[in-house]
């Protein structure tokens, strides 16, 4: 009965449900009376309970069960959904997310019980205690109803034990353990009997050691039993505790527990047994294991299987996209056959056609594969409403988050990485950007502060904007701080433009908040955001108006692996310049080059553009001097530069490859690519060269 095959489905679905729960809870806060939302939340909690129960994640099940009780009270109109209640429900959600993450990482739910949350839920319920009774009938047999447990000596088991088992029982009793015969009765409507039995076994393992099962474990696995089975368990726990634990499993109808005594001298030990009930949990469970040898090797299956597989990284793909890919591959095979059929002479017409066909297909395959890797930014965005809600309560500011363009798609790798920078920016906006409510009223602004999160596609890039209508960035304050921290010298500071001052924000360890809060301003600043975004091949810009707000604009490439590039020659070497950074290409007379403080510049359409001699920067052997040089003008953010090259080869689609660990320290080179002839060409890193 291996559950691991269902684990991935469980994880995937739980995540979806939790996300749904998150959204619905947020909505519920705005419309506490909306029955439709409430019903939806209840349904999700119920599904989660069922799923975690089936998988044997009892802690998660317990939590959802308690949550469900509270939800049903709300649904019945006994409790009103206020912010405090929602805080508790959100805590439940976080706890459930932690469980799921633990399951993703280790395959088990971990040992955290979240008792504080359970108590909080209990308190909410106890305020409405008169209504609790009807609830427990629903699905779970409540623990209080199982109080009629008999500990009298009359129900001593007469189960047949082999000699070996008998020895085990004897030695266990000698060590002050209890031995029980437990008969488990399943609900007649139970469909997955073996799965239920599996959960019963797992639960029992928490209490002690299973030494015998009737029918045999294999038979139980194969569902070769009616609705009951019997096990013999060695445990330190009391009968009541075990019974209570087992009855908590869904679809377990009844449990009958009897004491087991060694069969040759039954009478002498009975007193001893009843006395032992008090010694609960004195010895850790592991110590039981070395005294007991299991005859039935099948039993050990349940205890041994500790190392569960971790869940891998997956992308859910629309089947249509895979179909497209499949079609393209079949076309590729057709061209291959066609090329094979061409032999030598007189076929250049046919050959050219085939190559053109091939070219079209590879482009399409590229697009199709890229699309498979694409994930909507919603995946990242969906956690933000909740975050802003929490921030808003914590900071005591009215904040409204407006999101748009959640459907915009980005490469999976980018999606994975972009979350943290965005959280950072949003926190900044909420903490530093927006003023306090009083300050907003004093300034005559709307009481509620707005944060906008927008995503949209712009050509080959995706733009994500984080905008707030707060106070904006005070450049004077930034400048003073920068001088104080020594980021910039006072002399230099006087000449900095507005935009240059704002860029100081991205320098390492620069935090302008006067007081360091636990929301933002821990000294890890915007420089981390910038580094991360640049590592993704993107770029970040800030626009700000004092008193009106600020806007962070992140520009990310659609794809990471394959880009369009301009191949250029520097000396005899070939280099690639990413096409999206290139503005234009100019032929410039050497005599037109002017100097600003020894820096070569050219004036182009009234703009002064600094010149970068690639041959010098890249240590290429000096090529022949000519009267006219070719300059490739590249733009990075607001900055421009002209790269002097010795020749243009042409535009080409290139696959980006990393230079590897040993050469990762070279900043001017972003990577390498393999050209059609098998040679390697390096890709220039525009970020560091401009």
């Amino acid at each position: 009965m291996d559950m691991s095959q269902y684990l991935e489905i469980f994880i995937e679905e739980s995540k979806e449900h939790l996300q749904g729960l998150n959204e619905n809870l947020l909505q519920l806060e705005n419309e506490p009376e909306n029955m439709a939302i409430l019903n939806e939340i209840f349904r999700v909690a119920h599904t989660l309970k069922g799923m975690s129960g089936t998988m044997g994640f009892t802690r998660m099940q317990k939590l959802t069960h308690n949550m469900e009780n509270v939800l049903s009270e709300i649904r019945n109109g006994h409790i009103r959904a206020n912010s405090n209640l929602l805080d508790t429900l959100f805590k439940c959600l976080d706890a459930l997310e932690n469980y799921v993450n633990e399951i993703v990482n280790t395959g088990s739910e971990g040992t955290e019980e979240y008792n504080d949350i359970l108590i909080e839920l209990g308190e909410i319920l106890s305020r409405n205690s008169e209504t609790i009774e009807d609830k427990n009938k629903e699905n779970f047999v409540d623990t209080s109803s199982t109080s009629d447990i008999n500990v009298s000596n009359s129900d001593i088991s007469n189960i047949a034990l082999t000699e070996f088992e008998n020895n085990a029982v004897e030695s266990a009793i000698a060590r002050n353990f209890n031995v029980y015969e437990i008969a488990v009765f399943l609900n007649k409507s139970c469909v997955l009997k073996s799965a239920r039995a599996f959960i019963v076994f797992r639960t029992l393992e928490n209490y002690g050691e299973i030494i015998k099962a009737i029918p045999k474990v294999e038979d139980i696995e194969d569902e070769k039993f009616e609705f009951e089975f019997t096990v013999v368990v060695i445990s330190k726990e009391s009968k009541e505790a075990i019974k209570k634990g087992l009855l908590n499993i869904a679809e377990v109808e009844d449990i009958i527990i009897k004491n087991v005594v060694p069969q040759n001298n039954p009478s002498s030990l009975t007193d001893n047994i009843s006395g032992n009930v008090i010694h609960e949990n004195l010895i850790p469970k592991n110590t039981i294991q070395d005294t007991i040898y299991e005859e039935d090797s099948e039993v050990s299956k349940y205890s041994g299987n500790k190392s569960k597989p971790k869940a891998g990284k997956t992308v859910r793909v629309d089947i249509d996209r895979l179909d497209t890919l499949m079609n393209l591959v079949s076309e590729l095979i057709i061209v291959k056959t066609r090329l094979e059929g061409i032999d030598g002479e007189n076929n250049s017409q046919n050959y050219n056609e085939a190559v053109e066909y091939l070219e079209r297909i590879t482009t399409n395959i590229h697009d199709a594969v890229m699309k498979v890797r694409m994930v909507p930014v919603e995946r990242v965005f969906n956690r933000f409403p909740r975050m802003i809600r929490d921030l808003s309560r914590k900071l005591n500011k009215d904040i409204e988050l407006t999101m748009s363009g959640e459907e915009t798609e980005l490469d999976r790798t980018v999606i994975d990485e972009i979350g943290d920078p965005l959280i950072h920016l949003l926190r900044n906006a909420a903490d530093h950007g927006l003023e306090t409510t009083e300050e907003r009223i004093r300034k005559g602004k709307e009481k509620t502060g707005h944060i906008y999160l927008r995503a949209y596609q712009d050509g080959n890039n995706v733009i994500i904007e984080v905008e707030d209508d707060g106070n904006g960035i005070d450049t004077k304050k930034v400048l003073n701080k920068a001088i104080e921290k020594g980021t910039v010298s006072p002399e230099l500071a006087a000449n900095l433009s507005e935009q240059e001052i704002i860029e100081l924000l991205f320098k390492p360890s620069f935090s302008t908040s006067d007081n360091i809060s636990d929301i933002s301003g821990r000294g890890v600043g915007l420089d981390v955001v910038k580094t991360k975004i640049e590592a993704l091949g993107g770029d970040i810009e800030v626009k700000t108006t004092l008193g009106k707000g600020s806007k962070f604009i992140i520009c990310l490439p659609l794809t990471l692996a394959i880009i369009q590039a301009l191949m250029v020659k520097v000396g005899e070497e070939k280099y690639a310049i990413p096409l999206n950074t290139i503005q234009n290409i100019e032929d410039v007379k050497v005599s037109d080059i002017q100097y600003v403080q020894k820096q070569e510049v050219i004036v182009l359409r009234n703009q002064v553009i600094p010149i970068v001699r690639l041959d010098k920067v890249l240590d290429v052997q000096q090529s022949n001097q000519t009267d006219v040089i070719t300059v490739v003008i590249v733009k990075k953010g607001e900055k421009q530069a002209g790269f002097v090259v010795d020749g243009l080869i042409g535009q080409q689609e290139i696959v980006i490859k990393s230079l590897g660990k040993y050469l990762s320290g070279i900043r001017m080179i972003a990577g390498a690519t393999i050209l059609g002839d098998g040679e390697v060409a390096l890709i220039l890193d525009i970020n560091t060269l401009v």
Partner: protein
Amino acid sequence: MENISMAESKQYVVFKLGNEEYGIDIQKVQIIERIQNITRVPKSPYFIKGVINLRGEIIPVMSLRSKFGLEEDEYNDETRIIIVGIEDNKIGMIVDQVKEVLQIPSEAIENVQGFTSDINFNFIQGVGKVNGHIVTLLNLKNIIDSTV
């Protein structure tokens, strides 16, 4: 099969730099390639000759001669690139000639304490004596780590 008695011995790939013979643990060697076009990488350390394309993978290539302070390589028909892999990272090493694979028992390996050489001691694991000639065994990890 006949090596069962020599449980303590390891196999080494033996190559030449000038007149000296060096050996590296065969376990670390991924593949040996003929010299091919190497793309220079600007601003890289002096002993890194550049990168090559090894069946779609970009591999940095270093010159052991430069690393050891010997005179520059002159590539000829015998020149080889030995691609070694350490902890998932691959790097190529240019050598004058790859000679053979030798089985060297551990008792035939001598420590190099109190030994003078131009080569940094950290790079040397020991000296193996086989059939009358001497093979310097290299400590690949130290050589490569000093690259980073």
